[in-house]
Structure formats: C-alpha cells, structure tokens
C-alpha cells in the first residue's frame, strides 16, 4: 500500500465523518499533510516510519501498535492529521473558527461589570488582604 493511501486510511480512522463534520479524506489530501509536515521537520522521520506498513491489519490495530511501540511515530502521524484537518478552510468554516483573528475594540468603553453591579458586589464584600504595617 502506498504511503498516501496508508496515511489517508489512518487519518480517516482518526477523523471520520461525524454529524456535520466531514471525514479527513473528503476535505484534505496527502499533499496537504505533506505541506503541514514542512512546518514540522522534526516530525518527518516519525511520520514516515508510522506509514511504513501495509495495513494488513485494520487502521485501528496499526495505530494501537504504534501507540504502544513507537510513540514518536504515533505522535507524528496524529499531530499531522489533526493539524492539517483543523487548518482546512472548510473545516474552519463549519466550526465557526476564523483563526486567531485580530479584533478591534474601544479601550475606553465602559465595561459591563461596572454597570451591571457585579464588580460592586466584590467591593461590597470588603477588604481581603491582611495588612502588615508594624510587622
């Protein structure tokens, strides 16, 4: 089995379709995973080791074995799968995640806790610190 097929089989087991969310393979390709891997060259070795299998057994059995016997390979394959998936624009759209966007705000606007009385309750509960002058 080629590496890309192996990876997609593992990734689809890890990230199957569920409710509104698509399976890995229906929105991401092996090329996307390779692009992600370029950001993490430290994972390359483990990633390729993790795909070095003919998957005669099921994807789950292979992952189970990797998890027990080759933690670095397991971690590389799963990290690349999940990060590639959640970097995907369609997946982000479905989640309602615009990324770590910047948000403008008015630093002088009156904060709600000042007007709804909640901070007033904190003040009403009184002093909390232990004064120390003279000690």
């Amino acid at each position: 089995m080629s590496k890309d097929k192996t990876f997609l089989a593992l990734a689809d087991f890890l990230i199957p379709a569920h409710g509104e969310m698509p399976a890995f393979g229906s929105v991401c390709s092996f090329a996307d995973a390779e692009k992600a891997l370029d950001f993490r060259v430290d994972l390359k070795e483990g990633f390729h080791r993790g795909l070095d299998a003919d998957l005669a057994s099921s994807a789950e059995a292979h992952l189970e074995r990797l998890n027990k016997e080759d933690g670095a390979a397991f971690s590389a394959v799963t990290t690349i799968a999940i990060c590639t998936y959640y970097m995907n624009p369609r997946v982000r759209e479905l989640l309602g995640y615009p990324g770590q966007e910047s948000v403008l705000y008015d630093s002088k606007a009156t904060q709600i806790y000042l007007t709804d009385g909640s901070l007033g309750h904190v003040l009403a509960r009184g002093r909390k610190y232990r004064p120390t002058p003279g000690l």
Partner: protein
Amino acid sequence: MNVESLSERGARARRDEEVDVAIVGAGPSGSVAALHLARAGFSVVVLEQGEWPEYNDYTGARPEHELVSTKLWHPNPNVRDNPNDYPVDTSTTDINPLMFAGVGGSATLYGAQWMHFLPSDFRVRSLDGVAEDWPFSYEDLLPYQLEIEREVGVSGLAGDPAFPPRGPYPFPALPIGSVGLRGALGMERMGWHWWPGSNAIPSEKFGELNACVRRGTCLTGCPEGAKSTTDRSHWPLALKAGARLVTRARVKEVETNEQGLATGVVYVDANGRDRRQRAKVVILCANGVGTPRLLLMSGGAKHPDGLANSSGMVGKRLMMHPFASILASYTDPLDSWRGPFGQQVYSLEFYETDERRGFVRGSKWNCMPSGGPVGVSGAIGSKVYVAEEGRFQDFWGANLHENVARRFGHSLIWGIVGEDLPEEENQVVLSKDLVDSDGLPAPQIIYKVNENSNRLLQFNIDRCLESVRAAGAIETLVSTPVRESGWHLIGTTVMGDDPKRSVVDQWGACHDVPNLYIMDASTFPTSGATNPTATIMAVALRNTRRMIAERRNQKVA
C-alpha cells in the same frame, strides 16, 4: 529608530575594556538593571545567550499556528531543542522548569499576567509561622512596582479590595470577553472574590508597543508586538542610553581575583570562542535555574562547591509554584479562542492562610480562554489539561468531533497557582552527563511537590469545580499538578542578613563577593502565589537604584 533595527546596534566592548557593569541575561530583570544603570552614566555590557526576537517567526496570525507553536514556541527548552537554550535534566523533578533564551528572556513566552505580591507575602513567618519574612515590606517595594508598571505599560483596573489602595494603572483594563464574564459569573454565584485581569499588555499604543488586538497567542509570542517584553519596552531606551548588548554570548564563568572580588566573566561567543568581559561589578539575571547554574560552574579549585556558596545555599530552596488547571465547557458560545491569553479575570479568594483547610498559605486563580480546536481536542499533548493516561480512542474518531464541538469556542480555563514553600531538598545542581551546545554542564532539577502543595491544590480544585458548575459548566477536565508548569523559577540564591544562611543581602549583593549581584527571582525568600515578574522587575529596580546611590562606596577589584 524602530525596534526591528535594534539588533544592529549595541556593539561589543573593546577587547580588554573594563566596563563598570557586566550583566548576564537580557530578560526582564537584566533589562531593568541595564536601562537604569546606563541612564545613570555607568558603562554597561549585557551578555545574553539567545538572540533578538524575530517577530515574523511568531505564527499567531497564520493557519499553521497550532502546529508550529507546539514545537518552536514550546516553553520547555528540552522540547524546543534550540541550541541557544541550555537543556535541563528533568529526570528527578515532578515539574519541568520552563523558560526561553533571548532578548526579553522567558517573558517572550509569558502570559503577561501582571500581579504584585501581596503584603502577607513579605511576612509569612510573622503571620503564618512558616519560612522567613523578607528583609523589606510590601510598602517598601510599592513605589518601585508602580514605576515599573509605567515602564512596562500595564493595563488594569485599580480598586481591588484584595490589595491595599493604589493609584490607577497606566492603561485601562483589556476587555474581559465572554470567557472572563463567565468566569466571573461563577465566582459571583459563590460570593467569592474576582477582579478584571491586569496584564503587561497595553490596551493602547505605547512607545514601541502596539495596542493589543486580542489575537490570543500571547503564550507563543505576540505577532502584533503588543505584549510587553523588554526587547520593546526597555531595550530601545537602554541602547539609546549607551548600554551594549551582546547576543549569542553564553557566560560560562564569573571570574574572581585573589581578594575574592569579581573581575568579570568568561563567555562563549557565537563562533564558539571563549571571550573575557572585564567588569568592576557583575550582575546575574539568568533566572532561578540559570543563576545558580552559573555560580555552581564558577569558583574554580578555590571554591569547589561553587562561587558565593559559603552558606551552601546556592541552588537550594527552588520554588516553582505547583499548578493545577480546570477546563470548563458551557453550552453557550464564549468565543474562547480570543485573547488576551494573559488573564481575563483573576481571583484571590483563597490567597491567605486559613488553617482549617489543612495547609498554610494559598493560591491565585486566573481565568483564561481555552484556545484553538487542536488544543481543546486534548488529542495531542500540547495543552496543560490533557490527562496523560487513557486510551487513544478516547480522543479520536467520533469522540474527537464531540470533544471539539463541546469545548471549542465554549470553554474557559482556570489556572490555579499555589504558593510553594521553600525546602532545601528542592534544588538545582549540575548534571553529571547532560551538557549544552557549548559542552557546559546542564542544570539538573531535584524537586518534589510537597504535602502542603498537594493539599492546597486539591482544596482549590474542589472550590474551582464548585464555581464553574455554579456558572453552568457541562464538562470539566482537571489536571494536577501539571508537569509542564515550572514557569516561575524562584528562591535558589536566597537573600537574608545572615551570611551563614543566605547567599545575598537585601540589595542583591553576594555576602561572599561584594561586587557580584543577583537581581532575578533566585533571591526571593518565599514565592508568594502571584505571577512573579512584576515583583522581579521591581526588586531589580530597587537594587539598581541602591547601586547607583552607593556607587562611590562599592568595593571593586
């Protein structure tokens, strides 16, 4: 001059030039000392093993952020694996020390949560009968705290009844967002203390710092240049005042003469060559691990147990603030990937000792957003609240989607910082086999979370669960004590009056070597439970001012 062009400035001292002061480390403490000494007319050279931050490398604004930051911006130097850091032998510790090497120091990755120590922190022996009182008080330090706040550009709201009255912060508090409001709601329902977060993140443009735009990636470097770090807040001014900064300069030894006075330092430069920087005074600002490491590496045959160590206290009493975290998910949206990823709200409800609880001293809680989908999934070990045990299937398949749907955008994290009591067995020593990229011995950490801390954390976790449930949490995940949480490194060259029991005096001068100073948190007799950087910078300023005032009386080689 803008901050990007600074790295070209700050040339090395001339060969054999003796400067007034050599400082080791360009983090918050070293930067304060450098700025104020240079302004007072001292010739200053700072030696820093790391480099200037490259803001384009902060990936916060890019899609690959969660993928890249778990390696490149990981706070554990052993994971980051960057030759500018030294590795740390963590085989004998319950908690990994976290730090970063570079101009700006570990604050490059800090959450910028800005808290003063409380009055009782300086008087734990008098009030609670444990550890030692500090040689100075909350009131003594307050003017320096307020001055540092103005230099750093802190935003916050004055009037917190958990502190003595104080003047306004330089900038208004950042918006606390839905996460902070939900955290506050739980505290309100319990009738407990909470307050809008104070952060070293100006809410408006300030000097070289841009206004925060709530990108929420503060803990992995702020791509906006909004989080206050000293490469932007202090170094532009320090260089202008004449301080010189040598990067990729790893100090391997503090040298002394026959009279036992410091004469300067030896460092390995970027090309791997040994160089000597002569100085009348040497100041160590290399943090609670790097400073004792350097003293233990220094001293030669004359001081086989390390320099300035006649008390035997160098490296001892390491405190790292054992930490627990609670992730709580809610049905309604909280936009919980938005920043600031400092503290949106904090609580000091359980800060002071109440012996009925079965432990002494207390905790500080901070409420933060939970971040992006990869982090909240718990599927890769990047976040502090991920349990280490468990079947992998629990995090994958349909479970992955359900976990992300429940948590992403809908959850908050309360961090619980517990005061750590000093114990001599908890210490920094030199590793026998691990070395850094220059072949120098790495520090080894010997540290156990003690019984007081375990009880303290459990009590606080139970209370925190009550609070988040009172605000409607539908799921909670607890992690305690979090292994990757040694962000506060304190106590390893303790200050005191008695040279037999302490390493430095209350001004940071070593009892054994009067022209060798320590100005980082290594000197703190106790740890408090608040984030320490405000206090670190204030103590560094207090010591520096004293050094300037006493310049004519300073003993030098």
